[in-house]
């Protein structure tokens, strides 16, 4: 009817012309939008370059710390001023956001062979970057400046030596050798304390020279207040090592292979910390709360002290209006030691404009820049003169005692050094993760946790991947062979096509079809097929993801052998994932089916209910994960609030989902969370249910079958193909769980929620072990393929496709 009407209209010439004009206008508008958006970006980037002809372009990359947009603007301003002062140089600034994104982006740029000329580098990464030859030594520039009369020249002795040393690396250890960065800011660590709570409890404020005994006595004093926790003590590996140093002991011997956690002093110090946390209530927070990364907890006003933290908390805490607060340096134990955490501007060794980059680094660390920066609150100037000036010691802004940050550097009896880490970040990750089992969650004894660490670290350290020498990966041969294979394939395809059957018109249609899908085909080949093939080759190699591909080494099947035979973290991650799948898939499908049965009823407003049930499935994964982190919080979470009457009745203590019960409750917690977003499956089930002819139910009803039997003898078999489909989809998704774990637990505590995909991510983007990660990806593919095939093959026994065809 409508078709006929349309023809009548199009017979009308005016209308036909009008329609064509409309179509053309729409097409033109779409084209304009596309062209405009490209032009806009090109213009934005290009206009400044054009306005500065013949200038050198410097790429600079940084992140916004807790300073946020203000810090961003400040850097921008500073760079424009630099451009104005140096007409031959144009600065292109890249800010990928937070620190995590920063290092991922940096890694990609390095791997692509196009690193930024100048970039932030945390002291903890100097060893790994310098040992890979990614950063340029700056000593020549320093020497040249020392003898220069240029007022902008940089004089290294004006900086705190503790910060400068942090960026020296001689191939074996930090503190000696060439300089790899100009320190831009730093911090020492200590505790932020709630003065109002101290006053209420009648506890004296910490003194600059306080001891750990003072600290714990203070905490015990504070917890006498109702609902108040004495202190929140974070157990990051860096902090733990700082704590040990303050007791005059070290976690390592002459090198990192020499693990000294069982030494009397080390063990006693760790055990004391464990005891404060777990043997007495509320002195130190038990680490139950996942929100206990400390910072936000302090703002609630229910924690007396938080730390050990650096200067970075200040911008956030300056917003506190409910109570007064201040900062005290980390207490001392047997030794007077604190640590320096610092970030520098480093120059990429591949940079073609090193001297310009040096000029910019010098500019950005000048007294003026540092003074401006420290006014934002979060950074302590690395220049002594600026740090000791009012720019930092600002008497008008909190904390009142800014000088407390400088105590470890001013006092000659103090030692304040950077914490050094091996080039292989696995050490730090394992140390934190394994000791947390004892210190944070208390699920393992300290003895066992140390044993766990030693075993995992030894296993990693002694692997052929870490120790072995390998030949470079034969890329040219690989590419050659692949090219030949692809060429032969292409020729075969053309021949096959040319000789294929079909009339001329069918051919023409086929050509048109191929032409139309070609954008997708090209995209698929370039962005999927090639990377997939590359990952297969990478899985046979050892390649630090920070260097370019030509640095890859051929290791044969070593990655696979190591994974399957010598990596207990791999097996743990596989178990965590399988455990999750075993819970999440059946529970999720059952839940989705029940929901669909409910949604299949004819009640008023059913459309609303369906939409409401479906809604969570369209929410962003990260947002949902953040939300559920709160839900599962053992102290303030909704889940335990709901469970508490039940558990109280039975007399059980409430579960600590991601704490000490994580081994058996962690993965199910994620499964429970998945139940919230079964909307997609539910919709498919609903469609399946509505596809079952009503006749069948009526026939069965008349045949004398009740409601429940009808469900099992008609609904279920008729729905079986849909169930198989949904279950397969859920299974495949289940094996790939990543976002929730990444956001909610980061795999902690102690690898107990480290899902397969998360471990793969850690290997690839935290430890830069791309070959290892690629091998993991292929193993996962085989596992999923195997499980899927198994299900499909056996499905004939319990799936009735007849239901679909009727």
């Amino acid at each position: 009817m409508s078709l006929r009407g349309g023809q009548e209209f199009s017979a009308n010439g005016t209308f036909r012309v009008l329609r064509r004009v409309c179509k053309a206008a729409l097409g033109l508008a779409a084209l304009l939008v596309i062209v405009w958006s490209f032009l806009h970006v090109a213009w934005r980037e290009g206009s400044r370059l054009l306005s500065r002809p013949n200038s050198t372009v410097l790429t600079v990359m940084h992140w916004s710390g807790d300073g946020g947009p203000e810090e961003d603007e400040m850097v921008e301003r500073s760079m424009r001023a630099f451009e104005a002062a140096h007409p031959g140089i144009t600065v292109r600034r890249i800010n990928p956001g937070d620190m995590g994104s920063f290092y991922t982006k940096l890694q990609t740029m390095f791997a692509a062979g196009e690193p930024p000329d100048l970039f932030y580098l945390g002291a903890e990464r100097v060893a790994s970057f310098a040992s890979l030859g990614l950063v340029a030594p700056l000593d020549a520039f320093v020497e040249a400046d020392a003898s220069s009369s240029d007022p902008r020249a940089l004089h290294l002795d004006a900086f705190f030596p503790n910060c400068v040393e942090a960026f020296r690396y001689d191939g074996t250890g930090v503190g000696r050798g060439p300089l790899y960065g100009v320190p831009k800011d730093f911090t020492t660590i200590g505790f932020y304390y709630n003065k109002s709570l101290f006053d209420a409890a009648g506890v004296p404020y910490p003194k600059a020279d306080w001891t750990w005994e003072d600290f714990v006595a203070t905490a015990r004093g504070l917890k006498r207040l109702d609902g108040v926790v004495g202190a929140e003590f974070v157990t990051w590996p860096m902090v733990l090592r700082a704590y040990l140093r303050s007791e005059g002991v070290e976690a390592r011997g002459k090198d990192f292979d020499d693990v000294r956690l069982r030494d009397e002093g080390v063990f006693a110090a760790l055990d004391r910390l464990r005891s404060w946390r777990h043997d007495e209530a509320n002195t130190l927070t038990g680490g139950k709360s996942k929100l206990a990364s400390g910072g936000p907890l302090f703002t609630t006003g229910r924690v007396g002290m938080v730390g050990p933290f650096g200067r970075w908390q200040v911008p956030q805490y300056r917003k506190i209006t409910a109570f007064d607060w201040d900062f005290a340096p980390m207490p001392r134990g047997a030794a007077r030691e604190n640590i320096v955490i610092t970030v520098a501007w480093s120059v990429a060794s591949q940079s073609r404009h090193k001297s310009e980059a040096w000029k910019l680094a010098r500019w950005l660390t000048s007294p003026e820049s540092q003074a401006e920066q420290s006014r934002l609150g979060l950074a302590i100037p690395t220049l002594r003169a600026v740090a000791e000036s009012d720019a930092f010691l600002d008497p008008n802004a909190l904390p009142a005692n800014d000088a407390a940050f400088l105590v470890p550097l001013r006092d000659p009896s103090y030692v304040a050094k950077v914490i050094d880490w091996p080039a292989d970040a696995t050490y730090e990750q394992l140390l934190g993760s394994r000791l947390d089992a004892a210190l944070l969650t208390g699920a393992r004894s300290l003895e066992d946790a140390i044993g766990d660490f030693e075993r995992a670290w030894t296993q990693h350290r002694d692997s052929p991947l870490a120790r072995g020498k390998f030949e470079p990966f034969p890329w040219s041969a690989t590419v050659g062979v692949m090219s030949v294979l692809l060429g032969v394939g292409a020729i075969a395809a053309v021949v096959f096509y040319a000789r294929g059957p079909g009339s001329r018109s069918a051919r023409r249609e086929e050509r048109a079809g191929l032409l139309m899908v070609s954008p997708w085909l090209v995209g698929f080949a370039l962005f999927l097929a090639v990377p997939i093939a590359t990952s297969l080759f990478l899985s046979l190699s050892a390649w630090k993801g920070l260097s370019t591909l030509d640095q890859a080494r051929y290791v044969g099947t070593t990655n696979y052998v190591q994974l399957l035979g010598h990596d207990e973290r791999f097996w743990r991650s596989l178990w965590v994932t399988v455990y999750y799948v075993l819970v999440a898939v059946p529970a999720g499908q059952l839940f989705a089916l029940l929901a669909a049965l409910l949604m299949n009823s004819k009640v008023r407003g059913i459309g609303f209910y369906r939409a409401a049930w479906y809604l969570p499935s369209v929410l962003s994964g990260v947002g949902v994960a953040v939300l559920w982190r709160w839900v599962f919080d053992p102290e303030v979470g909704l889940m335990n609030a709901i469970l508490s009457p039940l558990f109280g009745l039975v007399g059980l203590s409430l579960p600590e989902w991601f704490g000490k019960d994580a081994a058996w409750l962690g993965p199910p917690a994620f499964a429970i969370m998945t139940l919230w977003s079964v909307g997609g499956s539910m919709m498919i089930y609903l469609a399946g249910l509505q596809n079952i002819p009503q006749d069948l139910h009526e026939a069965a009803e008349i045949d004398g079958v009740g409601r429940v039997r009808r469900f099992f003898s008609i609904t279920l078999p008729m729905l079986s193909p849909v169930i198989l489909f949904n279950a397969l989809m859920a299974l495949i998704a289940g094996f790939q769980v990543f976002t929730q774990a990444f956001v909610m637990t980061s795999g902690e505590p102690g690898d107990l929620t480290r899902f397969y995909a998360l471990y793969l991510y850690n290997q690839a983007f935290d430890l830069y072990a791309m070959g290892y990660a690629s091998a993991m990806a292929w193993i996962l593919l085989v596992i999923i393929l195997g499980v899927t095939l198994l299900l499909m093959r056996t499905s004939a026994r319990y799936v009735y496709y007849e239901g679909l065809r009727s």
Partner: protein
Amino acid sequence: MATVELKGLGKTYTSGGSPEGVRAVRDATFSIRHGEFVVLVGPSGCGKSTLLRMIAGLEPITQGELLIDGAVVNEMPARQRDIAMVFQNYALYPHLTVRQNMAFGLERRRTHGSRLAALLSGEYRGKREDESTAIAQRVAKAAETLGLVAHLDRYPRELSGGQRQRVAVGRSIVRDPKVFLFDEPLSNLDAKLRHEMRSELRQLHRTLGATMIYVTHDQEEAMGLGDRIVVLRDGLIQQIGAPSEIYERPANRFVAGFVGTPSINLIQGRLHRGEGTAGVERFAADPLSIDLPKGRFGAAQPGPIVLGVRPDRLRIGSAAASSTWKSEATVVAVERLGDRSDVALRVGQHSLLARVAPEQAPTEGATVTVGADTSDMLLFAADDAGVRLG
């Protein structure tokens, strides 16, 4: 075998948009005897299926009472009414074989069904096996009756439409229910197959001697199958009677028009009394004028009226010579159907259809004499109800 009684049965749908709801069936009252074959017939939307589904227990009854074997079953769920139903779309369980489909209802009714109990107790196992044998025997017997023995282990999708409908019937008869219900079971089949199945169903009814209620929109099927026919229109029963009675003595103009192929000729006209020849009344519809014997249509009053005459009672040409009424007519069209011919005629502005023997068919365009006996004529009131006046 059972009796079924409907007392003022009605169905009102409340979700019909109007506040008082939509009345799909109103005041249906009749009873069905043991072993009777009753057909509910009417155009689509007349409420016949709703009525059947109320009897089955698939639709809640909103007014009146339904009795099976003398007991009110209004509130009884379908599965307890001991009835069987055959659906238009067969409603076979696609995931079960023919054998399993037929045994389905029996399997659900067995008293010793538990496999677990059979494993544990020998006595139970014996009883369970006895039951299984009984079920198998009944299925085998039904399959034999319906010629399905060769197809017992096939799935419904492997069968033709006719075979599927046979399975659906088989599924009913193994249960040996009190009442059989059929909801347009043949309408998905082609004409030839439908004819065959019709006679099979008749035969089945004779063999089983069961009470059957059958719904169709096809009046020919209704006439061919039913012991009695219930004609429905807009939720109201128009007439209940044997096929011949419905055909010969339709209760009103609707029934007259609905039953019979081709449709009855209806002519709008007026009735004059006391005019013309003494002892007759005159039906006038210019240019037609028919004298009717006085007293034959006693209920008819002078004024507007509708006259009906069935096409097979009209005669043409020489055959019309002895008719009590004759007129000249023009032949508009002739449809030769082999064993008979349908002749479309025109008298003035009136169209008439006559069904005659093939050798009597005139040529198109010719002028012929058309005639009929006044005893074959029916008179209906000209109002909406159109009640037959004699």
